[in-house]
C-alpha cells in the first residue's frame, strides 16, 4: 500500500513538478490540487500521511489551511510542509508557528524533498 501525500499548489507547472518528485519516491502516491478549497474537500475523503502546501493561493491561503489542519483532531498529526519563495520570511515563520513541520524554498532540489519525505513518512 502506498501512502498518500497531498500537494496543494496553484501553479500547474510547479504542481506537476512537485508531484513528479513526490511520485518519484517509491511507496508514495501523490494527490494534487490547485486550491485550498479543494484541499478542504479532499481531506475527509482520503487518509493523507503528509501535506505539502503553497502559501500564496487564490481562495484560502496556505496558512489558513495549516491552521485548519492543525486545529482539527482528525488531521492534526499529519505533518505539513510549506513551499515558499525567497523573501517571504514572515509568511514562512507564521506557517512554522502554526505547526508546519518543514519549509521548502523554491526552487528546491529534488534530493532535499525526497530526503524529507523519507524521514517524515518513515520510508526506507
Amino acid at each position, binding site marked *: 500500500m502506498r501512502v498518500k501525500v497531498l500537494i496543494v499548489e496553484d501553479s*500547474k507547472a510547479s504542481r506537476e513538478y512537485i508531484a513528479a518528485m513526490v511520485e518519484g519516491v517509491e511507496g508514495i502516491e501523490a494527490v494534487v490540487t490547485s486550491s485550498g478549497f479543494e484541499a*478542504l474537500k479532499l481531506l475527509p475523503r482520503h487518509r493523507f500521511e503528509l501535506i505539502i502546501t503553497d502559501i500564496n493561493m487564490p481562495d484560502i491561503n496556505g496558512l489558513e489551511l495549516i491552521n485548519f489542519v492543525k486545529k482539527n483532531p482528525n488531521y492534526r498529526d499529519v505533518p505539513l510542509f510549506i513551499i515558499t*519563495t*525567497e523573501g517571504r520570511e514572515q509568511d514562512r515563520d*507564521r506557517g512554522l508557528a*502554526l505547526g508546519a513541520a518543514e519549509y521548502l524554498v523554491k*526552487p528546491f532540489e529534488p534530493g532535499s524533498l525526497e530526503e524529507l519525505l523519507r524521514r517524515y513518512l518513515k520510508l526506507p
Partner: protein
Amino acid sequence: MNPGSKALAEFVAEATEILDALGKDLLVLDERRGQEADPDLVNGIFRAAHSLKGLSGLFGQERISRLAHGTEELLDRLRLGKLRLDDTALDSLIEALDAFQALLAEAARGAESEPLTRRVEEMTARLAQLGSPPASAEEDPLDRLELDPQVRSVFTEYEEHRLRENVRRGVSLWRVRAAFDLSDFDKGLAELNARLKPLGEVISTLPSARPGGAHGIAFDLIFGAQTTTEQLEAGLQGTPAELSPLVVQPATHAAAQALVRAAEPVTAAALTRVDSPAAPAKKGGKKKGGRAASASTAAPAQQPLLPASTEGGESTSDGAVAPGDALVPVSASGLQASGGTPVTYLPGTGVAQRVRTVVTEAPGTSTVVASPVRPDGDTSLRSLTQTVRVDIGKLDGLINMVGELLLIKANLQRLAESARQDGAVALSKLFGQELARETRGLERKLEALQEGLLEARMVPVGQVFDKLARLVRRIAREAGKEIEFVIGGGEVELDKLIVEELSDPLMHLIRNAIDHGVESPEARLAAGKPRRAVVALRAEQKGNHVVIEVSDDGAGIDEQRVREVALTRGLITFAQAQEMSRRELLNLIFLPGFSTARSVSELSGRGVGLDVVKNNLGNLSGIIDVWSERGKGTAFHLTLPVTLAIIRALVVGVSGRTYAVPLNSVLEILSVQPRDIRTVERREVLDLRGQTLPFMRLARMFALPERPVNRYFVVVVGLAQERLGIAVDELHGQQDIVTKPLGGRLQSIRGISGATDLGNRRTVLVLDVAALLEEGMALERRRA
C-alpha cells in the same frame, strides 16, 4: 523530472497564460492612472509575478526568474503599501511585461540573446531602486483592531496589510460567518463573495477549524465594508451569512491628525467627525482606559447606542475568530445605524468602560472613498486559467486527419453511388444502400468533429486588442498626442492563426493613426475639436467574415495629395488619374512604392508600408479598405474569414480545368448570355439588378484557351464592398476542402491561394478571391 521539450512546452504554455493575465490587469491599472489602484488588482498582478518566478525557477529559466523576482519585489512593496503606484512604477511594470514576452519567445526557441540579457539585467537593477517608501505612520492602526492574535497569526503579510489599510481608512470591519455543506461549499462561498465584492473588500477567508456539523464546514470572512450597515445586510439577504462587527478603537488624537494629512479628504472628514467629540474631553490617552472613557463620554450624546445581543459568545468559541467580548453579532434587523453617522456598539459583557466605535461611511460618499473601483460588478472569482490552451501543432494534425476522413467519405460516397446504380444483382444494390446510409452517418460525425475542432481553434480577437491597448499609451506619449483608445467587439472570435497574424497589421494601422492621422492637441483645439483624439479598434462578425475597423477622428486623408504623390512616383498615368473616383484615389495608398518616410509627414501621414499591411492581410485571405473624410477622420476596414482551416468550396470548371472557389466569399451564381456582357469604359461589366458588376473571364485571367459558349456561369464573389463576377464554364458542386499552400515558385502566382485534393485523387487549385478582386480591377486598368 527531465526538462525535455515537453516540459518546455508546458512551461511556455503556463507562462504565456500568466503573462496574458498579467497584461490584462496591467491594462486596467493603466487605464485608471491617477485613481487609487484596486488592491485586488495589484495583488492579482503580484500573484502573477510570484507564480512566474516560481515557475521559471522550477524550469531553470534563470533570466525570467530574475526579472520576475525584481518585478515581484516591486509589486510586493506596492501591494503592502510601502511604495506608491505612480507613473514611473506603472511604466516599469509595463516595460517588464514587454521584456517577459521577449524572454519567453526566446525561451520557446531555446535561444538566449545577449542584448536581451543585458536589458533584463538593467531593468532588474532599476526595479530594485524604484521609489522610496512613503512615510510610515507612527502608530500601527492594526493595534486598534481588537482581534484575537490567533486569527492574526493565519493572515499572510498581505492580508494583514489589507486589514491595516481598512482600519486606517476607518472602514467598518465585519466578520461574516457562513456554514456550508462540505460537498459544495466552494459554490456557496463563491456566491457569498460575489455578493460581498461590490460592497467592499473580502480581506481573508478563514475556514473554521470546528466542523460545522457532520458534513458541514464553516468559514469566517473578514470583510471591510464600503457601504452602510443596511446596505450590507440587504446585500446578504438570503445567504447563510451572519454578521458581526469587528471593533476598532478610535485613533489617538495625534494619529488622527496624521490621518487627516494622509488620507483622502472624505475619509479624513469621516474620521474627524469620530474624533472631534472625543478630543475636547481627553487628549493623548494612549492606553485603552483613557481613550475608551473619552469615547464613552462623547458617544452617548451623539450616536444611537445599540444594545448588545447575547448570542455573542457561542459563535466565537471555536478559536478561528474568538476575541470573545470584542465581537458582537448583529442580527439582520438589529442595526438601526443610519449611514454617515459613526455607530457605537456596546458589547454585552464589557459594559461602560469598553465602548468601541465602528465607523461607517456616509452613503453618498462611499463611491469616492471606496478604493476598489469595480465598473461592472464583476462577480467571478478571478482565476489565472480562463482559457484552454491547445497546442496548434496538435490541432493542425487533427485538422489534417479530418481532411483525410473527408476524403474517405467522398470515396465511399462515390462507391456507394456506383454500386447502387450499376449493381447487376439485388444484393449489391442493397449493399449500396447500406453503404450510403453509413456514409451519411460518417458525414454527420465528421461534421460535428470538424465543427468542434474549428471551435477549439477560435480565440477572441480581444487577445490581440488588449496587447495593442498597452502600446497605445506609449506611442501617444512619444508622438505628443492625447489619445482616447476605444476597443469594441473583443469577444468576436477568429481562428487562432489569424488572430496571431493580425497584431502586426493592426499595430501598423494604429501607429499610423496616432503618429499621423491624429492632429496635435493644439491643432485639434484650433479646428474646434476636443483636445483628446479618439482612436478606435472594433471587431464585428458579419456572416463568415469578421470586419475589424481601425478608425480615428483626425484630419483625414487629402486625396489630392495622394493623387499628386501617385503621379510623381509614376504609379498612375495622368489619364488614369483623371478617371479615378475618390475611393480609387484613396486606395492608391496601398500600392507598393507609394509611401516613403518623406511623403508620410506631407500627407497627414498615411501610407507607411500600407502595402505590407495589405499583403499581410492578403495572406490571411482578407482585404483592407479605407474610408476617409477631410477633417473628420479615417477608418480602415479589415475583412477576414473566420477560419482558414477547412472551408466549403464551390468546384468550377473552366476550359476543361477544375478550380475550387471558397464558398464563404461566393454571394450568388448567375447564368448569363454573352450578349448580357457590356463594355463600359473598356471594362467588361454585367448589369445586376440595376448595379454595375465588374466581370472577369477566368479563362482569360489564367491565359487558358477560351471556348465559345452560348452561356456563362458567373460566380459573383464579394469581400467587403468589392464585388466581381467570375465567368466559368461549368459548375461541379460543393465540397469541403483543406487548402494546402503551394511551395516554391508557384507561391507567387496571383489569383491562386493553394491546392486541394478533391477526394477522387484529383488535385485542383483553389482561387484566391481577394487577389482576384484586385487583379480584376488592375487588369482592366492596365488594358486601358
